[in-house]
């Protein structure tokens, strides 16, 4: 159970930390104050608490489709925020105005909501069993440590690159993230019978299983699935391609604004 806690929490933290890592890197590159990021974390903690404590109320909604609809709504909203943020940045480097602040706060807040609430639900499942609770809590702390360490490593890697390269990598990772979120929406809607079920387009589980460490890492970072349906593939590729196209057709940002993080 100790190892299970490490794996579950590390995966959840990595999933939400990717957004935070990309955003903080972009904020630093554009020399914006990091206070908005902290507000985003606070919003995420509040939303995660609200969602986690009301999941039993949400579950039976809409003929037991409440969870799925809530998750898809959060994912679609996040994709919208990513597109809005990148459009704003490609128009010219992000400036600190009210809309930018809200985009940063909401994107970090919503990226934390589902994953952190799941960690809360997981640890809460052991609250009545003191012997197991300690293991679950300790495993969760170590798992969170692994996730946060990877995010910090990612952040420093991104901010040590040349500004132009770093911005391109951030855009590309945001595009993959958007594609992954849309692909997951398709899977969740299919689970709720709101989209037609399909057979897997391919099966790469023998090459890279979702249960392996590298598979779990890819699931957490890019929503890797060994058996995606064609609809999921279309959503992933279409979403990612659309975001990349948006960042390419707009005027290129001035990347000579400032260097970051001495």
């Amino acid at each position, binding site marked *: 159970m100790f190892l299970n806690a490490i794996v579950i929490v590390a995966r959840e933290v990595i999933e939400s930390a990717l957004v935070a890592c990309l955003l903080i890197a972009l904020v630093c590159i554009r020399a914006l104050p990091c206070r908005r990021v902290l507000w985003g974390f606070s919003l995420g903690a509040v939303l995660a608490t609200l969602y986690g404590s009301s999941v039993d109320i949400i579950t039976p909604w809409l003929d037991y489709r409440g*969870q799925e609809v809530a998750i898809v709504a959060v994912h679609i909203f996040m994709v919208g925020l990513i597109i809005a943020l990148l459009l704003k940045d490609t128009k010219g480097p992000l400036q600190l105005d009210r809309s930018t602040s809200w985009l940063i706060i909401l994107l970090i807040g919503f990226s934390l909501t589902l994953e952190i609430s799941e960690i809360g*639900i997981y640890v809460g499942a052991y609250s009545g069993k003191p012997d197991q609770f300690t293991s679950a809590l300790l495993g969760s702390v170590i798992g969170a440590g692994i996730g946060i360490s990877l995010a910090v490593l990612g952040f420093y890697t991104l901010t040590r690159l040349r500004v132009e390269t770093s911005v391109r990598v951030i855009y590309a990772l945001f595009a993959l993230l958007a594609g992954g979120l849309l692909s997951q929406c398709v899977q969740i809607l*299919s689970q709720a019978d709101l989209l037609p079920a399909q057979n897997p387009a391919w099966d790469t589980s023998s090459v890279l299983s979702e249960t392996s460490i590298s598979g779990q890492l890819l699931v957490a970072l890019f929503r890797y699935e060994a058996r995606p349906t064609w609809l999921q593939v279309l959503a992933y590729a279409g979403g990612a391609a659309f975001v990349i196209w948006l960042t390419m057709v707009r005027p290129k940002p001035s990347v000579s604004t400032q260097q970051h993080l001495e």
Partner: protein
Amino acid sequence: MKEPLFMKWILWLCIFLAFPALAAPSEFNIRIEDHLFIPDVLRVPANQKIRLRVINRDNSSEEFESYQLNREKIIPGKSEAIIFIGPLAPGEYPFFGEFNPATAQGRIIVE
């Protein structure tokens, strides 16, 4: 005699409303008790959509997860949830409870 247009619309509406009922998938139940799936083997027909009702009788939450079925859902304690699966080809599809994988294991056998 030409029938009124609204009659056609009513007919289409009836067909539209009746369609989900005609296509309603079969429902199967699984319980979670003491972090075990009961039954742990569920036999379902091939090539049919299934409405799987997972009833959690434990106080704690569990996460129903299956890589083969591509499904993942939190089942709150003392609560229940519905997961749609299939249509599936004949075969075995394992599932597990992510919060208690040592005990909560099961299989769906499609035949």
